[in-house]
């Protein structure tokens, strides 16, 4: 009798361990379907290297967009890719099935047993999809089109047996093997009873879609950093070049010169922002002296409105006021008789000031809200006590209100410090023009111009943009930690 319990315990332990393998396998599969380097459906190099299995399954147009010409010429049948998409969908469904099984494995015995059936069906579906992929690969290797030579066809649509195929096959086979071993360990009688999953795992499963989305759209993005270490040739082959592009940034004269200018612009803009960061505080302090509620409401509504307007619209406003045919020139014309006939937005040497003023115009009223609220929280007794001591209006403002706002202000200042390299793209993009680009190009705009707007596009532009993005991310994170540490050691509170 004792021996049987011991055996059962041992068996349960083995079963639990195998369930962990299933869960890990499921999550791993769920991750790699989004990784383009691990696409088992890339049966020809004509399929773009940035296509993941997931994309193959959801978008046929992406699958074939480098192959439009060969398909049109009949070098390869369009149906091959329709079937490739179907195969990818089947593989994807198989993986989802295994994931369902893994999710149910967190439940009670009933749930686990139901989940167990999803395991071999998932494995088989993946296997079937892979078989489809294999047959389609064979089709591309031995095309039906006999009107042109095989070599020519292979040149047009180069067959490529993806090694990733084996990875997925391994996954499918492991799923089936796991099913067999778990069933062997399990006394296989479908139990009656309530289907349920333990609360702690159930809550996790509820949160799982959110976690997965976070992973796909935030963490997976970091994969793109690898581009900083590769050189892409015209034929689309990536070679690892180490820190070549990092060195290139500093050794190539023209690039380095532009980079220094960009850094200067970035620091100047952020610096001007830091220098004027007290403006919202002043706004709030004086705003609190307005006692008429109607006036307060009107002023607050109107001054916070610009914050919710896009930078493009701000640019539209700027054009209407300061362009060659804008309001300002018409007003000048009305007074002096001649229009200056120039656009005020194209003056290179005042661009820093212009950007600062637009920033102040857009943000001051909004940033002040937090201070206005802080002021309304100040104990009125302090003002009364100060009044008894003979403090006048400005005395109370300077010796009570302002010091009470310093803690909030210091947090804002530290956050601004952490963001010193991030000016944002929109403002500088919309206001930039060929005449002011020298002084307006900040890091974010520089990365955009390199990556997406490159005139004289060269091999270097995209890796360079990545190098800069990556360094900026790392430095910004470091600054954030420094700011947080400063806040912790001075105020005893963290800001993140």
């Amino acid at each position, binding site marked *: 009798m004792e021996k049987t319990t011991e055996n059962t315990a041992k068996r349960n332990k083995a079963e639990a361990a195998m369930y962990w393998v299933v869960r890990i396998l499921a999550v791993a599969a769920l991750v790699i379907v*989004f990784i383009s380097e691990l696409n088992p459906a890339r049966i020809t190099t004509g399929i773009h290297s940035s296509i993941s299995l997931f994309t193959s399954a959801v978008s046929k147009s992406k699958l074939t967009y480098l192959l439009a010409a060969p398909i049109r010429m009949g070098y390869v049948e369009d149906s091959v890719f329709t079937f490739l998409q179907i195969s990818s969908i089947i593989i994807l469904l198989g993986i989802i099935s295994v994931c369902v099984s893994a999710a149910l494995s967190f439940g009670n015995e009933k749930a686990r047993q139901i989940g167990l059936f999803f395991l071999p069906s998932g494995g088989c579906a993946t296997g079937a999809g892979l078989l489809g992929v294999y047959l389609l690969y064979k089709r591309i290797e031995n095309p039906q089109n006999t009107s042109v030579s095989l070599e020519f066809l292979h040149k047009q649509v180069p067959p490529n047996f993806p090694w990733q195929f084996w990875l997925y096959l391994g996954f499918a086979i492991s799923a089936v093997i796991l099913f067999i071993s778990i069933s062997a360990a399990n006394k296989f009688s479908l139990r009656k009873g309530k289907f349920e999953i333990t609360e702690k795992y159930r809550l996790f499963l509820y949160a799982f879609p959110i976690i997965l989305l976070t992973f796909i759209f935030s963490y997976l993005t970091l994969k793109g950093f690898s581009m900083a270490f590769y050189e892409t040739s015209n034929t689309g082959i990536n070679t690892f070049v180490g820190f070549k592009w990092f060195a290139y940034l500093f050794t190539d004269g023209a690039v380095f010169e532009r980079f220094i200018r960009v850094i200067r612009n970035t620091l100047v803009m952020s610096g001007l922002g830091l220098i004027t960061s007290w403006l919202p505080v002043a706004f709030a302090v004086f705003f609190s002296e307005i006692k008429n509620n109607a006036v307060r409401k009107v002023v607050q509504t*109107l001054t916070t409105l610009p914050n*919710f307007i*896009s930078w493009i619209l701000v640019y539209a406003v700027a054009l209407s006021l300061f362009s060659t045919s804008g309001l300002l020139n018409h007003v000048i014309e009305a007074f002096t008789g001649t229009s200056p006939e120039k656009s005020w937005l194209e003056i290179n040497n005042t661009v820093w000031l212009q950007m600062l003023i637009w920033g102040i115009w857009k943000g001051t*009223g909004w940033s002040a809200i937090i201070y206005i609220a802080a002021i309304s929280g100040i104990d009125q007794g302090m003002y009364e006590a100060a009044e008894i001591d003979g403090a006048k209006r400005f005395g109370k403002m300077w010796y009570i209100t302002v010091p009470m706002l310093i803690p909030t202000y210091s947090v804002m200042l530290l956050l601004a410090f952490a963001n010193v390299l*991030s000016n944002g793209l929109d403002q500088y993009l919309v206001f930039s023009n060929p005449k002011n680009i020298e002084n307006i190009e900040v890091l974010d705009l520089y990365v955009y111009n390199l990556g997406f707007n490159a005139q004289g596009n060269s091999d270097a532009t995209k890796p360079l943009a990545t190098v800069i993005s990556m360094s900026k991310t790392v430095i910004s994170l470091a600054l954030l930690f420094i700011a947080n540490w400063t806040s912790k050691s001075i105020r005893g509170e963290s800001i993140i």
Partner: protein
Amino acid sequence: MANSRKHRDGGTVHKNTPADYVFYVINYAVFMLFALLCFFPFYYLFINTVSDNGEVFRGAITIYPKGIHFGNYTALQYVANLGRSVWITVSSTVISTAIMVFASAFAGYIFTKKNMWHRRLWYRFTIIPMYFNAGLLPWFLNMHSLGLTNNYLAYILPNIVVPFNIIMVKTYIESIPADIEESAVIDGAGTLKIFMKIMLPLSIPILATITIFGAVNRWNAFNDSLILMTTSPKLFTLQHRLYIYLTQSNNLEQLMRSGIKSNVQNLNQKVVQYTVSVVSTLPIVLVYPFMQRFFIKGIMMGAVKG
């Protein structure tokens, strides 16, 4: 009230001195001037769209409209692609905001549950992306490999999880007394039922705030349209369209041609730019004054978190 101010305890009465009056006049004047500066550009754009187009072209409109007509607005229907962009913007704003709010509410609630498996780990995992930004090119590559370039879903899917909103909802739900949930548990309600029947209605104030922020952000969004919609002009958002109208004159020529079709007198570049600008901002300017308290509540909540 006009010239004396009672303190809260009701005792002392403060008489305004002449210096106080000077201060008030200057203070009110400065704030009114700043408010005017903030408002005038919008007003200026608007009066230009309803004035006589010939006068607008000559720059004769400065403070008040002349020859009021609304033909420019009806003429917009002839502007190629504009209607489609409006539709893209409106639909993506509504859909993505609705999903984002529901997801934030649900995630915010689930992350308050202490017995979730490795709750702290997963919560941090979800929140950390708030503090880094991989940059445009890695982002583009990721979206491309997910098949989200030239795809309408690019306006929806990436915006579902917004860490900051999850934090706000979580903080809010944590401030709701725990006995409400406990009594529901005793009555036999499950997690999902508690969420739908209790937590969702109770957190409406915070959800209203994140709705309005989310909607404004979506409405103003233009980076994703600019960078991801490389070959699909039909998916451009309204802001992107406006950007093109403002910066590319060859597009404006097309507008002019369509303007001739519409029988509006003297339709010109400037007027079309102004009118599209007003249309693209109108929802915000109209809605903002009524929703202001939600915005203000939003920034205060954020500040509590720090």
